[in-house]
């Protein structure tokens, strides 16, 4: 009787493929923590301790940074002088554009700047333009990096519309609107009767000079067209020495921007009066742009800008407040099972 056990029931329609099970068992996958989603994991959760300490920590870090940043900003001495309105002869104020476009008028203009506080060298000289869309797509695209870098690629002017070639088809170097509209006001500083020399070396990025603007690339056909843009370039100086151009070619992000003009390696005392002789050549009148001359020292954070410090202080303070608030919340409403 025993012998028939286990095999008796007919392979009724239900029992399936009898040989299958043992064969399939060999397919048994190996256990692995990965496939079973059981990898060791850390499961941090926001416990009161964490929340409070995170906010406190942020506060503790941010407030000193904020104070440091504010102090740095405060130590920067900055002289800003807007001269575009002042440097127009009174007779021409009605038609500024005509004034600036008229080459025959002498554009020399003199400004006196008072140093408010002691300024340690180096003192950076900037020009600041307003309402100048250096970030306009048409403008930004209008350049050719290949051409700037390599004398052999002077013909690569594809993106440079409309300052691509001269009328006879020879390529303009450097091509494009950016180069074409190079800033051309000049500044000369005198302190008392002593000339303050402006050092224009090293105002651009070293990498730009070394790798982006070629040593053997000389301006060609530049500013020869009907429309004259900004400054002309010395055709005998390679591009990598034309630092004004290199600085200018770094297009600014915002319509209000400063660009480095040069450095003055001389300390200035408070109440010194600097006389600036400037040539007001650049046309910002067409588009109602302002022109400012900026003299500024720098700190480890750069120029004068209180925003960073204030923002740090605000966030830091807010974090302290939140830490306190959460402390109160957790005291008032602890998790109900605490204490069991």
């Amino acid at each position, binding site marked *: 009787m025993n012998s028939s056990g286990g095999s008796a029931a007919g392979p009724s329609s239900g029992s399936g493929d009898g040989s299958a099970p043992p064969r399939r*068992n060999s397919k048994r996958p190996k256990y692995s923590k990965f496939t079973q989603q059981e990898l060791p994991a850390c499961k941090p959760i926001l416990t009161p301790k964490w929340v409070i300490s995170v906010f406190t920590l942020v506060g503790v870090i941010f407030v000193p940074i904020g104070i440091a940043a504010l102090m740095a900003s405060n130590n920067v001495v900055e002289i800003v002088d807007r001269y575009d309105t002042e440097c127009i002869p009174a007779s021409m104020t009605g038609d500024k554009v005509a004034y600036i476009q008229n080459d025959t008028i002498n554009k020399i203009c003199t400004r006196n700047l008072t140093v408010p506080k002691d300024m340690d060298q180096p003192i950076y000289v900037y020009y600041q333009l307003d309402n100048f869309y250096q970030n306009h797509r048409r403008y930004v695209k209008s350049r050719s990096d290949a051409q700037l870098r390599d004398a052999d690629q002077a013909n690569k002017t594809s993106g440079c519309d409309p300052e691509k070639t001269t009328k006879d088809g020879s390529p303009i170097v450097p091509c494009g609107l950016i180069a074409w509209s190079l800033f051309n006001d000049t500044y000369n500083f005198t302190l008392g009767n002593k000339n303050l020399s402006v050092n224009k070396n090293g105002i651009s990025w070293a990498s730009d000079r070394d790798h982006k603007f070629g040593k053997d690339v000389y301006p060609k056909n530049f500013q020869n067209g009907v429309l004259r843009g900004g400054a002309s370039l010395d055709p005998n100086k390679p591009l990598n020495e034309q630092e004004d151009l290199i600085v200018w070619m*770094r297009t600014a992000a915002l319509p209000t921007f400063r660009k480095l003009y040069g450095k003055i390696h001389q300390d200035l005392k408070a109440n010194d009066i600097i006389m600036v002789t400037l040539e007001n050549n650049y046309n910002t009148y067409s588009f109602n742009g302002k022109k400012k001359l900026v003299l500024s020292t720098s700190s480890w954070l750069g120029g004068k*800008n209180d925003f960073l410090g204030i*923002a740090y202080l605000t966030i830091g303070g807010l974090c302290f407040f939140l830490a306190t608030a959460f402390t109160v919340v957790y005291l008032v409403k602890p998790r109900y*099972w605490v204490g069991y």
Partner: protein
Amino acid sequence: MAPGRRRHERLRWSKLYTFSCLRPTVVTDDELPHPLQGPGYSRLVHCNQPGLHQKKPLNYCTNHISTTKYNIITFLPKAIFEQFRRVANVYFLLTASLSLTPVTPFSAVSMIAPLAFVVGLSMAKEAMEDWNRFVQDMKVNSRKVSVHNGEGRFGYKHWQEIRVGDVVRVEKDQFFPADLLLLSSSYEDGICYVETMNLDGETNLKVKRSLEVTLPLDGDASFRHFASTIRCEDPNPNLYTFVGNFECEKKVYALDPGQILLRDSKLRNTTYVYGVAIFTGHDSKVMQNATESPSKRSRIEKKMDNIIYVLFTFLILISLISSIGYGVLTKFGMPHWWYLQPSATSYVYDASKPVLSGFYHLLTALILYGYLIPISLYVSIEVVKVLQATFINQDIHMRDEDTGNPAQARTSNLNEELGQVDTILSDKTGTLTCNQMDFLRCSIAGVPYGVGSSEVEIAAVKQIASEVSGTIEQHSSTQDFWEDSGDGFGSPECELEVGIARMVGKPHRPTTKGFSFEDDRLIHGNWAKEPNAGTILVFLRVLALCHTAIAEPNEKTGGFTYEAESPDEAAFLVAAREFGFEFCKRTQSSVFIRERYSPSEDPVEREFKVLNILEFNSKRKRMSVILRDEAGQIILLCKGADRLSKNGRTYEIETIKHLNEYGEAGLRTLALAYRVLDESEYSAWNTEFLKAKTTIGHHREAELERVSDTIERDLILVGATAVEDKLQKGVPQCIDKLAQAGLKIWVLTGDKMETAINIGFACSLLRQGMKQICLSVDSSNILSLNKEKAAKENTLMQITDAHEMVKLEKDPNAAFALIIDGKTLTYALEDDLKNQFLSLAVNCASVICCRVSPKQKALVTRLVKEGTGKTTLAIGDGANDVGMIQEADIGVGISGVEGMQAVMASDFSISQFRFLERLLVVHGHWCYKRIAQMICYFFYKNIAFGLTIFYFEAYTGFSGQSVYDDWYMLLFNVVLTSLPVISLGVFEQDVSSEVCLQFPALYQQGPRNLFFDWYRIFGWMGNGLYSSIAIYFLSIQIFYNQAFRADGQTADMAAVGTSMFTCIVWTVNLQIVLTMSHFTWIQHLFVWGSIATWYLFLIAYGMFSPVISGNAYRILSEALGPAPIYWAATLLATLSCNSPYLVYIAFQRALNPLDHHVIQEIKHYRKDVEDQHMWKRERSKARQRTKIGFTARVDAKIRQLKRKLQKKVSEERMWASMATTNCASVEAVEECLDEEAALWLKVAAIAAILIAGAVGVAIPLVGGKGRLVRTDGGVFVCVKAFAAGVVLATGFVHMLHAAESSLTNPCLPDSPWRKFPFAGFVAMVAALGTLVVDFVGTQFYERKHQEEATGAKAAASSAAADLEEKGITAALLTPEADSAGRGKDPMHIVGIHAHAAAHRHSHSHAHGACDGPALPVRSHGHAHEEEGEGSSNARHVVVSQVLELGIVSHSVIIGLSLGVSQSPCTIRPLVAALSFHQFFEGFALGGCISQARFRSTAAAMMACFFAITTPAGIALGAGVASSYNPNSPRALVMEGMLDSMSAGILIYMALVDLIAADFLSQTMSCNVRLQVSSYLALFLGAGAMSALAIWA
């Protein structure tokens, strides 16, 4: 196999079989072969001459099948076409192609590369899937079968090599490789058994038989010279028809479906068959039948589409903004921007055509802001889902140890849907039960035998035991009980095993499959000692003889293997053998059994000659055999359904009783009977039977049935059998868990109602004390003529009655079970009844549908899916479940015993029902949350990134310049943020799988959609918006225009862009860290790796030639890296962007934690280990309230006991308890809770009420200003009267009543609140207080006014005089002008007279004069007005301010009460009512304000204040809705007090300052028409406002 090896077994079944094996011999005259002409009948097959099928008209397709979508050539075009059927991809393609034109803001490669990547990846997935299909096909195609090679030799060939006309030999248990014509079989008369489960899901075997003419072809050699032709129909999908002719040796024979063996069915119980292939490959019927399974999309994905639409709208909006901005700037700015050379522009920048340029820019903007719609979202989701599916496939816990079948996600796009299931529709057989029969009990001669317990009974007993223990323990401590049950569920298997061992007990012999019978009275030959031994003998013989099975000697064991048509039959034979009646042989004419009366005796082999077999069919529900025994006696043995017993005699009553008992215990029953026939009767019947058998035509069946019925009469009942339909392992536990997870379970079965109910009890879907609603229409009882209609009406009536019953049920714990049979379901599913049926079914805890057809299963599924709008899951194992599986949102197939049809149609396959728990509760839950969070995060990060581009636009004159390098943008989605989000989607676990299983209620987060509701989505989008703003403006401010390093350089666009982008990379990656709660090394690697990649990229990119990297050349190493400000900006922006989210989640955790938060914390603090008590309590709480499942049973029992206990104790405390129940019941009143709908309604309410209020208050104000409604005209007086009525009614009807009801709420303590009528009292006090305020305020204003007036007069006396003169002149010019002041002077009567006298101006000069209507005050000169109106104006100021105070405090309360309601049913009418309410009140208030002549700003402020209070109240209410309990004492007292106070204020104001002032004034008494209309308006206003109280 040698031909004819088993010739001894060849049986001519046709001699025995009644119905199906009747052979229409050679074609007779009246049945001519089918003419087979015309289209559709063109197929010609040359049997055994496959070579002839190589030329054109006969060159049929090969047997190679391919289910792939593509081949190597078509893949590219087809797959690309598939990809671009997605709208999103078309958009991306469009942008990519636009990027080749000058309008593009990016380089073309940055647009095309991601698209190519995404499309490529999707296509790779397609290719993978198709490859898998190809491999599958190859497997099938390369199966081997023995084929005739010519010369009588057979050799094995691959399936795909079979050609039409080939003769193949198929052996037992093999599948047929193509549609074959059966030529001959191992049986002499050419029959064979076929299992067609893969085709139609029917499990019983079907008999096929060959033509007589081909019978001699029964050996390999005989095919040497065989040749014939077949003409037949063309390939078609119809499984049950076949028309064709077989031509052999010039004779023509008709073919019918009975000779056709269909591909994919299986040869059973037959050693081998020969057949010739007719249809091969895709021509075969099964391939013709294959349908594409419907493609399903998950709910989340559908919602995601909506989000995409929202974003797309937004995208178009901001694109429009920027293109308009661009157009404007181009037109007005461009000509001045000489540095752009505006004279030499192309069309994109043309200042002379700003509209055209703007249009081009729109295209640019659409591309530029395309980051809002993340291209990578689709591909990430695909990747994540595939990986999730892999995890499901790999899960060891969902692997069946016995078969080794793992769970399989067959489609990966429904993973997250698993987490949102609301209703499960389950098949019974094969899903809940094993479809394995065990012979368990029997009743012979009225005596019940068998003590073994079925699993059903074991489960029941165990549960009862637990219930008892539970109730004992629950008195001492409830926790202990939960512990027990909890632990029990921790190891359900072991408990069940123990249970079985205990109940079945001491197995004294190895148990036999199919036989669990235990009763010593019958086994081992003991039955012979029983009193009714004779009957028992007959009973056992019926078991052993009445069947159609075949015995096969089993070499290994020496016993027999039975091949039976159904599992029951096999169980009977095994039982008979165990009892000593071993069926051992069947020959052509006889059945041999070995009878052994006692263990010691040798068995006697007896031969019974089989005279007739009357087969089982579903109409008769019985089968019989007619035998001649060794003594020559003719006996008829019969087994059948219960109805059989109606014919019985002696043991009828007892047997019926036992049948019912067995039925209740969940067993399948059959009654057995016999009858002795005398020779003459039999031969008379047999002639008739033979005649019926040879009848040709469709009457045959009916005829046979009739004849069979005549002989199956006067049967003697001997007993009944009970066979258990075994439950699958772990089913009750799984159902319990699913019920606790809040899922509803419906069972749809083809079984009869009793069986279904029994299984219901076994699975705890039903329990004692549950009210069962059985819907069934017994049409035989209906006498009406129109049976259909009557039955339908009957159904409707039953549904309505049941519905009433459910509705009237007060006990919240009462549970209903709906049981409905297939016939009734036919009516209930009709269009006009189905909604009522559904609403009834939804209200029932469990629903069981019995005797349903596969189609009905699908219909029910559709009804539930579409009717409730919730996610349905259908689970089944057989082909009859395919419809339901395809219809449901998710189809789950059981890859168990029955065929693969269900699995092929399903979206997921598991091998046992119990794995469903893990599939849903663990994988479903995880996948849902993962996908939901992932999508939300995706939108967040793309908004955060994309919008910064938009802001920057505004600073570039909308020119379309991006601040970021093209490469940054390209990398953002592809590299820098893709892996962390994928790791979130693949690896995130809120809690571990064990916790998921321990806390099934966590599952409800899915069906409630807590993680993908609009709150969340918009919250995430808001977070993205905030981050974008923060990052952009912080960066802009920090890098403004000053030097950013000590060396004095200023930041150019590359520096600003890079710094900003660094902030974004940090922010979004830190955000995902905050989102994730589970960090393995993978997440760490991905997140921190992504950030590191960014810096690495910057360095690497900076090292490329500047021609490639442009201004980003050496940006990190030279420019930004050494600048502290860069790092400071990153830190600042990152932290300020992430801290709001951090605050949010910290607060949420602290104040309003979700379930998983609490569990995470408990786990984190290891409380579950330290504090077992608390852990258990949490676990017991974390169950969804449910009425089904084992736990619910226990709960019900506990409640029952508690109730008893309570009854005794609580007589005297009745009042108190009633009070508490009242209070509780108020809370439970909100029936139709639907937070999302409520939220939308609230938003609508805010808008509606805001508008209504604003309009209401604005009409009088604007009207007064714009002279549409003159402030003192008759119309205005009426309007004011109307407003007064409104205010009065508000005070009396709305507020006083509301105050009363809140202050007498049963939830407030008796003392003092119900001891004293506080509402009235407070109202009175408030009224008195108003009086004081009124007086003091008026005085104050007057004094102030006087001072001002004198000052002003002194200053401008001449001007004033001038004006006054002019005014008077003007007044003189108009005759009525002198009476002008009158209308404005009503206060003289009621209030403060004295002050009027103080004014020298004489607007009282017209007092007493009734002539002339009041003129607009404005017609007076300015000075006149100022002077004259001074005093009354002060009054008006006070009146309007006090009125505002009263109304506003009320408005807040009603707004609040609407806001906190979560039920759309209560909110809907409230919105309408409150809108009107607000409109009227606004009107009233507006009137007063306009009279008070505030400065327009002040007036506007007051109006606005009024208009926003109610909406603000609603918003506040909605905000606190979850935590605010309107029945808390504090809330009640607050509400009551505020309401009664404002009631007092309003009543005073209405009566004194509005009604009395106007109605008792001079004007009124003088003008009858005005009087009448004012009164009418007053009553109208009061009436209208009062009527509103009906709804609000």
